[in-house]
């Protein structure tokens, strides 16, 4: 029976190639999109799952109340790990320092920059054991590898990159020109789905003040890039840890406001999803909402594909009616026919699944490239996934096939045999129209979302930030040495390609930042305020084009008397309660850096110091040469190539031992919108897929409509109808549906995108134009899809169509 049925199904699918092709394409695209979404979701959910008993693992984090916000910080003071261990030896705690990048030198070779280097104490591998990674230790002893100073553990790739096929053990490296270390171990590469990625682990004994700009690694006063991890094996150590963290807060509080700080444990599996700590995580964080949105998108896309199948199959059912009549006449029961057509859907769905799988595998590298992830197809081979897929296939078959199969099995055999089946009833037509409206609503919704994201991206580019970002580069200075700075400046002073040069900690929007507490007589007591300090020289204003509102700009004398004068932005004086910038001149503020208490000598117009996600914060521009780790250079746009070469040459003359690093300010800024760029790419891809699936469905539906209306078209033409009037006759019903879809999608898209835009302190208004463009675009695409067949039908010779009918 099965053999016989399958044989028939295959022949039928082969015979009706158009129908099969359209359905196969729609379903396989839908399935491919869903598979990719499943892989993305699986990848994100798989973060940090390679440690044993991950429910025992925690990271120490803190929460500080500021006047109008709560600051969440995953960075903790460097003594935290040691303190926890010393307070209770039962607490398994490890302290690390995460360096985004570090200069490495092998022997006499030129130095280069290594990214993601972790300084970790000897308990690191007892806390985070990476035991889920097969044969994690390639060489070396995990128990002793990180004991004492000057030890390095490399990942396999790093070792291969440094030493090729040579045995790396015993080889020596020079780190940041500050410390030497010996390779004592090699581990497998850290998977990309780790919240703490690293290429190199350096023993914590090697870590010193030099690696954090001379700040004291034993100080409780700042957090830098320190993290502490804890493995809690029982309830006792859990409560002991909580008490110890409480003790840290109590013993370090300098004011009542400091007592409001909380230190607590964040479960390791939550790290990747907790947006509160996004700013201080070593890698990106993803919200559960984002993953849920992806799932929803996947469901929508597969539903669009199912709807195509339902609509095409029910339309096609009338073509197959005679066959149904014959089968019924010779004894097929309704149940047998239902089963037969469900099996046909199942066969097609299985074929689409195979095609979809191949498509997903083919597009996976592109998705990885767009999203900058290391997603593999390995989860597809997991037993859970295979079982889930089979269930999903059955569900898909049921959703797509049940209604058409019921319709066909229910055909009246007499009418079927005579090809006199009544046209679909009102409810059936309404259902089909509703399904088309649903499809287009989803597509239009996606188009609107894509347009809004695109406009917000444009806004990122175009928004005036209060400083000049074009043609400005940041050149990293490896040493805050005034003699070398002066040398560097003298080498560049005659460069015509340079407009301005300023030594500073960084551009207004930069990877370097210094957030400190701020106190002033104008501010209420017991409430903490935060200000961002930008250490900079007297050329900063001219280099970045800041606008002075009142008072004066910094003078060379201010630099000699650090902490005497500060220029602040409008937001800072507003925080102090002044509306007129002049009123703030001469007032003093206390900044949480060496407790300095400078006088405000000037006020600038507000400028952005972070991405447009954030509000403008109070900023203090402080002359403080100790922090001049960057040269901000504004170039003449016309001669950048030569000038950049000259800058590099000068730099290499001054800092021959170091790695030259340069970045454009506008590019740094653009990197802050990486997540949005990915959202944009994702929405764009899903919009294209969904509108494409909709259109192939529409194409199929129109084909059936045209066949049905052949006679009517012939009669109308004989009576004098023009081609355009016939095209409109065929198109108008469908275009109306697209119009209704626009009405449904617009408020939903508006609501959703408004929510999305709430993430940005500075955002666009969603104007009516977006809806108009999306609507016109959908109408145009639908019309183009329809018109080819409509024009073909309208241009046909009526004599022929009337005769052949």
């Amino acid at each position: 029976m099965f053999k016989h049925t399958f044989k028939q199904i295959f022949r039928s699918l082969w015979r009706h190639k158009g129908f099969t092709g359209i359905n196969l394409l729609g379903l396989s695209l839908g399935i491919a999109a869903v598979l990719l979404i499943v892989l993305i979701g699986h990848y994100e959910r798989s973060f940090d799952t390679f440690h044993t008993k991950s429910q025992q693992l925690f990271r120490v984090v803190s929460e500080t109340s500021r006047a109008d916000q709560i600051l969440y910080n995953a960075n903790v003071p460097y003594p935290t790990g040691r303190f926890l261990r010393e307070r209770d030896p039962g607490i398994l705690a490890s302290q690390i320092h995460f360096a985004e990048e570090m200069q490495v030198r092998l022997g006499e070779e030129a130095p280069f920059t290594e990214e993601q280097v972790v300084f970790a104490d000897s308990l690191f591998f007892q806390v985070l054991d990476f035991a889920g990674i097969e044969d994690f230790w390639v060489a070396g002893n995990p128990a002793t590898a990180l004991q004492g100073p000057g030890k390095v553990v490399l990942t396999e790739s790093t070792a291969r990159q440094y030493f090729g096929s040579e045995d790396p053990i015993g080889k020596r490296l020079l780190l940041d020109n500050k410390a030497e270390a010996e390779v004592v171990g090699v581990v497998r590469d850290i998977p990309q789905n780790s919240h703490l990625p690293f290429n190199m682990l350096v023993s914590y004994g090697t870590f010193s003040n030099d690696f954090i700009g001379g700040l004291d690694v034993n100080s409780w006063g700042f957090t830098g890039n320190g993290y502490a991890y804890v493995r809690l094996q029982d309830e006792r150590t859990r409560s002991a840890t909580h008490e110890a963290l409480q003790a840290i807060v109590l013993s370090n509080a300098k004011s009542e406001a400091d007592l409001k700080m909380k230190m607590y444990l964040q479960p390791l599996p939550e790290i990747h999803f907790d947006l509160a700590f996004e700013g201080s995580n070593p890698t990106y964080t993803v919200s559960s909402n984002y993953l849920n949105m992806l799932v929803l998108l996947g469901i929508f896309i597969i539903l669009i594909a199912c709807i195509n199948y339902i609509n095409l199959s029910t339309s096609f059912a009338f073509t197959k009616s005679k066959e149904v009549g014959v089968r019924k006449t010779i004894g097929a029961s309704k149940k047998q026919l239902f089963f037969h057509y469900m099996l046909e859907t199942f066969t097609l769905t299985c074929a689409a699944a195979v095609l979809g799988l191949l498509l997903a595998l083919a597009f996976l590298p592109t998705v990885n490239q767009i999203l900058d992830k290391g997603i593999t197809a390995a989860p597809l081979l997991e037993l859970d996934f295979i079982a889930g897929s089979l269930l999903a296939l059955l569900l898909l078959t049921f959703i797509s096939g049940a209604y058409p199969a019921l319709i066909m099995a229910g055909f009246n055999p007499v009418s079927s045999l005579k090809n006199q089946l009544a046209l679909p009833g009102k409810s059936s037509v309404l259902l089909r129209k509703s399904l088309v409206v649903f499809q287009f609503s989803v597509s239009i919704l996606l188009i609107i979302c894509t347009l809004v994201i695109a406009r917000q991206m444009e806004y990122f580019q175009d928004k005036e930030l209060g400083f000049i970002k074009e043609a400005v580069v940041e050149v990293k200075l490896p040493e805050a040495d005034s003699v070398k700075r002066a040398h560097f400046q003298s080498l560049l002073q005659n460069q015509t390609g340079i407009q301005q040069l300023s030594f500073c900690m960084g551009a207004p929007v930069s990877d370097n930042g210094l957030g400190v507490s701020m106190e002033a007589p104008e501010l209420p007591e017991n409430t903490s305020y935060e200000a961002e300090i930008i250490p900079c020289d007297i050329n900063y204003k001219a280099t970045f084009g800041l606008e002075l509102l009142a008072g004066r700009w910094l003078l060379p004398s201010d630099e000699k008397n650090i902490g005497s004068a500060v220029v602040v932005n409008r937001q800072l004086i507003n925080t102090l309660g002044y509306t007129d910038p002049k009123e703030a001149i001469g007032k003093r503020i206390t900044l949480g850096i060496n407790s300095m208490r400078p006088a405000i000598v000037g006020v600038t117009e507000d400028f952005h110091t972070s991405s447009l996600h954030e509000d403008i914060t109070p900023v203090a521009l402080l002359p403080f040469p100790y922090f001049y780790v960057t040269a901000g250079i504004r170039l003449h746009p016309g001669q950048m190539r030569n000038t950049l070469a000259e800058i590099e040459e000068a730099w290499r003359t001054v800092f021959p031992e170091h790695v030259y690093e340069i970045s454009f300010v506008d590019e740094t800024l653009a990197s802050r919108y990486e997540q949005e760029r990915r959202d944009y790419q994702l929405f764009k891809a899903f919009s294209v897929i969904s509108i494409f699936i909709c259109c192939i469905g529409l194409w199929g539906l129109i084909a059936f409509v045209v066949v049905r209306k052949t006679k009517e078209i012939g009669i109308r033409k004989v009576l004098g109808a023009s081609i355009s009037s016939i095209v409109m006759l065929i198109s108008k019903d469908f275009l109306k549906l697209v119009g209704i879809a626009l009405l449904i999608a617009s408020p939903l898209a508006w609501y959703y995108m408004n929510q999305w835009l709430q993430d940005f302190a500075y955002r666009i208004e969603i104007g009516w134009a977006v809806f108009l463009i999306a609507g016109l675009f959908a109408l145009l695409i639908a019309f183009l899809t329809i018109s080819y067949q409509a024009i073909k039908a309208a241009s046909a010779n009526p004599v022929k169509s009337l005769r052949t009918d």
Partner: protein
Amino acid sequence: MIKITNLVKVYRTEEMQTTALNQLNLEVKEGEFVAVMGPSGCGKSTLLNILGLLDDPDSGSFLFNGIEVANFNERQRSSLRKQHIGFVFQSFNLIDELSVFENVELPLIYLGVKESERRKRVEEVLDKMQIMHRQKHFPQQLSGGQQQRVAVARAVVNKPHLILADEPTGNLDSSNGNEVMELLTDLNEQGTTIVMVTHSEHDARYSHRIVRMLDGQTVLTDIMV
């Protein structure tokens, strides 16, 4: 075998209603070969559909082998149909995706006959219809006459007691038409009851009796000698 009493069938649409069978009475005995004739629209096909349990009457009685089937539901009708009734259509109504063998085999599949038995019975009937050599061909590769032979083979493969033929020679030339009529006569001679709707006086002469219909009623019965 068939006894129809006061059978009424009315087709209704929103705008109008048409009485297809109007208090029709008819009896067909086992082993009979009955031809039904009449002008278009007189209700012949409706009668055939009701006899084939493809359609149900609005009122009246329909006894099939002594059992009242007028009020049978879809499942009961389908079950009775596949066991006792074979159909031959004017337009053959073979399934294009199936080969000759598979077309003939289909009723046996729906009856749940085992594969080995199916093969035996299909080969037997194909042999009888002299189309064994065409068993692997598809309908579109056959002539009209051959297609109708396959259709007849399919109608008789489950050894039905009754064959309903709806203008079986309507799409055939006279030579092929005669061959099909010979086939039906042979079947009848072997004991199968046949009711055939036809416009052709020539074909009707193969039957034992011609029932003439007008406006949904039988108006005359000619007994053939």
